């Protein structure tokens, strides 16, 4: 129903009222009784929303805000006076913490880009080939790995290519190849983390990009073909420009998910590998010099500063593409 037709029918009932504001009660033309509509008059409905806002304020905004606030606070060890300072943030950008940030960024970048490319191709292969049952099978499996993987993923890989893993042993026993020294593969180092992270990054890309691929209407390709376009020209001038913002947005999402991931890395490396989320844990559980208590908050602030702008761009890109792909 269009806006015009709705306004038209409404003004038949009550020509005196503005058509866009139907009011609370209409008298029917034959006077048979009032017709209740959901009212637009001054509403106190927001009162009903206060539990929600209070909950969010207490259990989400307060803790998060506190972290960002105490990132700039420091208690002087001698005088006991707490004051504003930038020193937490500057120590969080040095030494082992700088290494952590660098490692996290590298890991997120590599698994984000590779995950996005492989995921895109895989999603295309799935969308263009399967029937209903297989699609459901694959999409739920992808959802499990992307959203609920965490700890189990680490153990799948430890059992397969870890120090006493199945493949590691088979290679050593039958081929005399040491995964670590001969093939330079270390599951508990950055290559291992990349391999394991892709195990949830690729499914995440499949989940995010599949609706976009399904939204490419076959009619567009038919129209292009009828106008004499080759398949390459179709993808170059129609498919790719429509998908590009979506793929870019998905890659940003993957970057953030790789950057923020904690469980897999912690389970895999027992918290030993220098990644920023693992370092935050180490700092807030007290493994830190006196006077550096708020270092963890500074590290958290750095994470937020990196992740939030990217996620905002992701949202904007998503909004832009929904215009074409429905």
């Amino acid at each position: 129903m269009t806006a015009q037709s709705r306004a038209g029918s409404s003004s038949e009932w009550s020509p005196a009222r503005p058509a866009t504001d139907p009011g609370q009660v209409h008298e029917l033309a034959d006077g048979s009784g009032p017709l209740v509509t959901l009212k637009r008059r001054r509403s106190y409905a927001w009162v009903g929303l206060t539990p929600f806002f209070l909950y969010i304020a207490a259990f989400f905004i307060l803790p998060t805000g506190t972290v960002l606030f105490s990132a700039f606070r420091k208690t002087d060890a001698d005088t006991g006076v707490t004051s504003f300072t930038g020193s937490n943030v500057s120590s969080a950008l040095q030494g082992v913490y700088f290494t952590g940030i660098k490692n996290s960024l590298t890991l997120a970048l590599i698994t984000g880009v590779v995950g996005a490319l492989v995921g895109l191709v895989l999603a295309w292969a799935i969308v263009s080939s399967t029937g209903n049952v297989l699609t459901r099978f694959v999409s739920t499996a992808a959802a499990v790995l992307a959203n609920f993987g965490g700890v189990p993923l680490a153990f799948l890989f430890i059992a397969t290519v870890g120090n006493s893993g199945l493949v590691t042993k088979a290679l050593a026993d039958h081929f005399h190849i040491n995964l670590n020294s001969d093939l330079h593969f270390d599951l508990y180092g950055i290559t291992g983390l990349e391999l394991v992270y892709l195990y949830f990054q690729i499914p995440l890309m499949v989940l995010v990009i599949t609706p976009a691929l399904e939204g490419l209407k076959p009619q567009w390709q038919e129209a292009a073909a009828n106008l004499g376009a080759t398949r390459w020209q179709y993808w170059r001038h129609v498919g790719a420009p429509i998908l590009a913002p979506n793929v870019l947005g998905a890659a940003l999402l993957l970057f953030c998910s790789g950057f923020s991931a904690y469980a897999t890395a912690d389970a895999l490396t027992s918290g030993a590998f220098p990644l920023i989320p693992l370092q935050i844990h180490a700092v807030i559980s007290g493994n830190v010099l006196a006077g550096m208590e708020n270092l963890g908050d500074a590290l958290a602030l750095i994470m937020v500063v990196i992740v939030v702008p990217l996620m905002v761009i992701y949202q904007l890109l998503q909004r832009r593409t929904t215009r074409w792909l429905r």
Partner: protein
Amino acid sequence: MVALTPTAGAGGLAATQAGGPATSSRRRRRTGIGRGLVLLICGIYFIGPLVGAFWFSIQDKVHGGVQFSAYAHVFSAVGFSDAFMLSLKLGIGTVLISLLLMVPTMLLLHLRAPKFRPVVETLCLMPLVIPPVVLVAGVGVVLAWGPNQLAGTPLQTFLNAIQSGKTPWVLILEYVVLTLPFTYRSLDAGIRSVDIHTLTEAGLNLGAGWGTVTMRILLPSLRTSVLNAAFLSFALVFGEYTVASILQYQPFAVFIVAAGQTEGQLSTSLSLLSLLITWLLLLLISLLGGRNSTKVDI
């Protein structure tokens, strides 16, 4: 000029290719091979570790051959039942509180206060943006206020109560936050798919009060999406590791890691079981969603 095919399928597409039947069939075969290759390589990458882990978990390291003791002895493992029960409790608690909080909020939002929708949506999706480790760092700071800045106040008693005791309420309260994006999306999709405005107006016009409308119209028509939200939240809580391990509790996921220090086979088998159970749960949701294709359509 070739006519457009009304049915959108691969066959219809190929027939309209300008290049003629010979080229298009060759092209199709080539895409078929490419597709097969992609599926094969990804299949190996994704199924390999699963098969490897399963094989690892049933290996008999002492005598050689195969044995299923890692699965048979899951329930008798030290600490397992405590961790499992804790996760169950956390899951149920989280589901109940988040539904209690969000179902009225979402209904109100759509029926009476639509102008708050952007605000609520943004707030609900924020936990996806803020890394959980940042949230839990903040929770740690706030909890530490109890014995310091807030000493002697009722708030200290409150902060104490949610940390100690049989149920770690602090986890449930934070898990409700972590599951908000899922709850919001499920309920939002459910509410959009039925025309609740018309249904509510119809109910009110037939003389029902708001109570009757809620109980007999709104909630039944949202059954599927409420179930969706519940299952998703439960699955998320069941596998949650970050918050629980940093706050030093030991539910299921933390137990898997702790067991991994000494008993690799046990953690591997538990990991496989946990993935399998989550997957079955999601499959169930997807089936529920598919069956509900006969919606109230006005």
